[in-house]
């Protein structure tokens, strides 16, 4: 087998054996620390435009299955692994992981010293990079990486949003209208399990189009890219705040915060994994959470970190916001509630898929907003 390589924009090069679909491919190189859930991650629309480095060394052990799809297709651009396995012979597997990557057109590379890659990214921050087949000239690889647009200012939601509204009938629950910037299927499953009628709108929808659906509550979905590039969604949300209850997850949290006048910033290397402790300040309860985000919301005074375990408040354009959830790893904002209008958001993924189910109770509290 011939050697390929992962090249980062600062020139760092890591050799390995190409697998999956044929490269080359470029994107933002990020790492994920979860030990399970590789298929869920690759099909999560929030990974659009990104190459995922899995820190867990064995990836593919249990193959792939239809139940592990978080959307209809793969969204990650590429996959970097230490020790890839096809895993097709496990009893619960419906297919092999490497076969599946090839079928989905996702280039990958194995045999990479992923620890070295992660240390590099941790020290220098998430950056662009590419997976290249053997024989690619260094100069050509560098040019391709340099030609990849930066994640800062990238509007990727437009590439994953549905062209037409998607509708799911409910079973007596509230009508949730989602602005679909790349929703994960597990969010859909969680809402439907609670009987919600669900309408997913293209992220380019106007406030009038959202209101025309007569929502009980408006949901702002997860999704890829830089929230600062989604000014048009922010404008829509801003019109809805105060008119309808809103809740957001991940990118949706960032968009809602921007809509009420708070700022977001890019984390040095993001949170991507399934083990982040998040403290619910009202109860002291700590949920172990699934996370996948490169940007975060600033705390009061523009600070990225909040030192005290207290429900601190900010002023927003719509009255006070109160910190509801705090990340115990780097003390960044994980969730907040608006005190004067019906709105609440979290940065992490209560729906899991992949990751722990600890925070699923949050959907119940979100849906109570519908009665607000």
């Amino acid at each position, binding site marked *: 087998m011939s050697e390929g390589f992962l090249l980062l924009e600062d020139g760092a090069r890591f050799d390995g054996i190409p697998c999956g679909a044929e490269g080359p491919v470029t994107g933002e190189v990020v790492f994920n*620390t*979860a*030990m*399970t*859930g590789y298929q*869920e991650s690759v099909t999560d629309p929030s990974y659009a435009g990104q190459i995922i480095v899995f*820190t*867990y*060394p*064995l990836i593919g*052990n*249990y193959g792939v*299955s239809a*139940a*592990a799809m978080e959307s209809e297709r793969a969204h990650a651009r590429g996959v970097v692994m230490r020790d890839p396995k096809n895993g097709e012979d*496990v*009893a*619960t597997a419906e297919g092999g992981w490497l076969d599946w990557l090839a079928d989905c057109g996702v280039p990958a590379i194995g045999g990479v010293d992923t*620890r070295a890659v992660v240390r590099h990214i941790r020290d220098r921050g998430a950056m662009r990079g590419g997976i290249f087949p053997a024989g690619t000239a260094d100069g050509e690889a560098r040019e391709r990486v340099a030609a990849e647009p930066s994640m800062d200012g990238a509007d990727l939601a437009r590439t994953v949003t549905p062209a037409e509204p998607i509708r799911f009938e409910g079973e007596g629950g509230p009508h949730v209208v989602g602005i679909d910037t790349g929703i994960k299927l597990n969010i859909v499953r969680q809402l439907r399990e609670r009987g919600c009628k669900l309408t997913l709108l293209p992220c380019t929808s106007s406030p009038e189009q959202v209101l025309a659906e007569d929502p009980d509550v408006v949901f702002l979905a997860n999704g890829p890219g830089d929230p600062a590039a989604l000014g048009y969604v922010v404008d829509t949300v801003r019109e809805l705040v105060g008119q309808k209850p809103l809740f957001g997850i991940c990118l949706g949290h960032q968009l809602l915060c921007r809509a009420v006048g708070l700022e977001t910033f890019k984390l040095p290397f993001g949170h991507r*994994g*399934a*083990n*982040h*402790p998040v*403290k619910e300040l009202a109860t*002291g*309860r*700590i949920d*172990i959470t699934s996370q996948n985000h490169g940007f975060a919301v600033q705390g009061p005074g523009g600070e990225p970190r909040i030192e005290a375990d207290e429900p601190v408040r900010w002023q927003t354009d719509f009255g006070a916001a109160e910190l509801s959830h705090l990340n*115990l*790893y780097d003390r960044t904002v994980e969730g907040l509630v608006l005190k004067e209008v019906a709105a609440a958001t979290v940065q992490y993924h209560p729906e*899991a*898929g*992949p*990751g*722990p*189910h600890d925070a699923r109770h949050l959907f119940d509290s979100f849906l109570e907003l519908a009665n607000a």
Partner: protein
Amino acid sequence: MPKRTDIEKILLIGSGPIVIGQAAEFDYSGVQACKVLLEEGYEVVLVNSNPATIMTDPEFATSTYIEPLLPGPVTRIIEKEQPDALLPTLGGQTALNLAMTLYEDGTLEKHGVELIGADHAAIRRAEDREEFRQTMTEAGLRIPWSMTVETLGEVEAALADGRITLPAIVRPAFTMGGQGGGVGMTETELRQVVSEGLAASPINQVLVEESVIGWGEFELEVMRDHNDNVVIICSIENVDPMGVHTGDSVTVAPAQTLTDALYQDLRDQAIKVIRAVGVETGGSNVQFAVNPENGEIAVIEMNPRVSRSSALASKATGFPIAKMAAKLAVGYALEEIPNDITRATPASFEPTIDMW
């Protein structure tokens, strides 16, 4: 909440002789616990019958007794030392059983000694087969069918009316390392294994249960603090299937063949188990059988203490379970304890292999 100031002197029971299934891991956990408790400013009274241990080196405790791990000698130590608390969860099954005896014969109450880490009721719910079965059923968890047996005659009757189907597993109550247990493939074999099990159990009780031989065997190491927050330290997969005792099986951490969905189900169930059993603070080990064909899960057992698996989990993740268990037992919360490896993150950050 910071550490407790209403207790000053803590009795720690070691694990005694090193025998099969009860190896040097409890010396390791005992040393960690002694160090932590001394660092936190408590007086530590240590009793262990085995002088060939590191924990019995004089510097690891305020006072060290090398005495038989029997109710009589330990009662005399309690009378002399008057400890405020007894930490029974770090010296393996020997320490746990001895603590239970001292509770049941009234010694602890008489001298005002509090069981910390796991109390008497929690230990009973985990260790008594019948109580464990009830506790799991009430928590909505599936466990293999089972019956508690105290005489061979009960087995004969159950075989006759079909309540026992073969093959069946025999597990003696209050024993370690699977001692006296086994599998009955035929009626003759079952009778023999039950007789041996009854003899091996200190309370002459065995559990006869549904065979899940051939299913995958998984363990989760769980820790809980007094705020009811829970973390999974790691998952462990027994490479050998159910039917090969864990002590004889090659085990790997983390689990290698579980999908995220199945792993998260086990995680949810392990958390339910530790809450239902009521281990207030510290580590527990929960064992599951998973049907490889359809992912069906059954809870097999839980150890309400530091176990052999804790040593493996500690090494694999860098999360020192015994040390954390000692800190949790004296009142710290997971979020208040820094992780030894990362230093920057709290112990409530669930360890992930290769995250550092």
